[in-house]
């Protein structure tokens, strides 16, 4: 069973096709990066997969269940691009609230909260209102809320924006650890150095997946030494999605 599978997925806003014929196959326990410029359709694709918006046509399955479906929501963690934490609540109250939404008991929430606060380096800020935190700190709270229930699949939309480089490294170590525990991570990012840490990446442009594969293979195939250059090469080629190494 694939963690995520889409076939000919289309999402339109009026006449505009934000996601166009997307065929995405993500294995369980994989870190999959969606790369592309603004407006490429990465966020829309993640929103459809998280069950936030309805698709226009095609299929979109998460853990073999067609989304949107509340059955799958309990196994999914979603961190949107916006801070999306309750600024009028403290860090603790935010984490506790999301824990309760996922049906965790008090003890479980307390244990996870302690771990997560250490991980996001906000233990000393536990009882501070989120509105008083810096942008990067708010982002970290948002990440903690997505992780509270140890989801099987984690959708992260630009999770490291506004996070200092030192903490970004820490984030990625954590994502790798989650992958080792069997969690599937689907991530969108602008940072190409980060994208190289993914098991596989998919290049998106104008709603379409123009290429996907292991970062090193994509670079090798295009004869480039960065994913950014590789993306530009693929973006110039008018042809169906290229999957180097896949016969």
């Amino acid at each position, binding site marked *: 069973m694939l963690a995520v599978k889409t076939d000919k997925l289309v999402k339109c806003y009026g006449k505009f096709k934000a996601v166009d014929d997307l065929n995405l196959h993500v294995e369980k326990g994989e870190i999959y990066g969606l790369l592309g410029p603004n407006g490429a359709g990465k966020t829309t694709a993640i*929103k459809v997969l*998280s*069950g*936030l*918006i*309805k698709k*226009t046509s095609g299929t979109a399955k998460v853990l073999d269940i067609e989304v*949107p479906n*509340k059955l799958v*929501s*309990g196994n*999914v963690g*979603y961190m*949107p*691009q*916006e*801070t*999306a*934490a*309750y*600024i*009028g*609540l*403290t860090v603790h*109250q935010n984490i506790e*609230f*999301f824990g*309760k*939404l*996922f*049906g965790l008991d008090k003890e479980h929430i307390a244990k996870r909260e302690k771990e997560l606060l250490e991980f996001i380096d906000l233990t000393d800020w536990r009882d501070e*209102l989120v509105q008083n935190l810096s942008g990067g700190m708010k982002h970290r709270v948002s990440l903690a*809320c997505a992780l509270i229930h140890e989801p099987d699949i984690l959708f992260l939309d630009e999770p490291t924006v506004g996070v200092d480089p030192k903490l970004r490294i820490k984030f990625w170590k954590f994502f790798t650890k989650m992958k080792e525990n069997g969690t599937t991570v689907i991530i969108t990012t602008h940072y190409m150095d980060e994208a190289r840490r993914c098991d596989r990446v998919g290049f998106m442009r104008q709603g379409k997946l123009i290429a996907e594969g292991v970062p090193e293979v994509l670079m090798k195939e295009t004869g480039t030494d960065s994913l950014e250059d590789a993306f530009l090469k693929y973006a110039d080629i008018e042809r169906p999605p290229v999957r180097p190494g896949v016969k």
Partner: protein
Amino acid sequence: MNMKRVLAVSKRVFMDLKNDKRSLALIIIAPLFAMTVFGLAFSGELKDVNVIVVNHDLGMDVPTIGEINFADDVVNNLDSEVLIIEYKSNLDSALEDLENGEAWAVIYFPEDYTNNTMASMNPMLDASSSIDLYIDMSNANVAESVIMETNSALLATIEDTGGGIPVTIERIDVYGENAEFMDFFVPGIICFTVYLLTTLLTLMSFIGERVSGTLSRVLATPLTESEIVAGYAITFSLVGTFQAIFLVVVGIAVFDVMIVGNVFLAFLVVALLAIVCQALGILLSAFAEREAQAAQFLPFIVMPGFLLSGVFWPLEAIPAWLRPASFFVPPSYAIEATRSVMLRGWGLDMIWPQVLALIVFAIVLLVLAAISLRRRG
């Protein structure tokens, strides 16, 4: 519906309000402010209205009684708390003052006023007497008050002279004995402030949720739309009840308001109104894209509540063709019900039509609010 998740939402909304000192102040201070300011301003018995009396009445010498002057008696019967009386001998000069805005009215007694009044008391004579009341009608309230005071003084004078009034009204208070404006006003202002604040707080809160992305985020969890609406309903019905208790306590302590019926039934009505209003707030938030747009909804929330709910004026005071519009204003039912409970002592057996109307409003708006939260296609 999972009650644990509903309660989690309810607690979250409550904590949000508790942590926000401004919202907290709004919940507590705004109703108190509204009750005090509106209450005192509207209860306004008119006082210190300047009038000029020009008394040319020559009076009359009655052999057995002595000299009588009915004009003096009328003037003595004018309420000196309401009217500040200035005396002038020259009518033209008095009218000049009236035209200059220095007085609201000039009461002119002609020379033969006592004579004619005496004659009019004799049924054998076809006589009548009158005084001239020159009045500035630019302020209807003040003018009405002067006319009423003058009439009362005239009637009192006739009674004093034993003239006798053919018909009198015997007032028997069925409900609200000795009720004053504040007694009428407090139930209304409770419902009005709960309506206004609950609708606005939910509206602002939900626009915030939509804009900040928290709404999308919680909808990506197992939480359902109806659980969100139910969670909000619990918190705001409790907040509404708290506001009602607070206002009733202050009303009793400060304004000595009258409560004849079961005050807990009134609280129940207010809680029901709060549920209706929070659903209305959620529903309205679907039509806003930015927090600043909440201000654009204000006239549509405030005006109907202000004008069509009967909080300040009875619904009978608005034109008959406009009255049906009040059927669509939820606080109008709550105000009528709480007034009936607090002033008439009515129970659920009497106020059930209003309670039923509020329940119908609640169900319809809760369903629509939940639908408005659904993910967009």
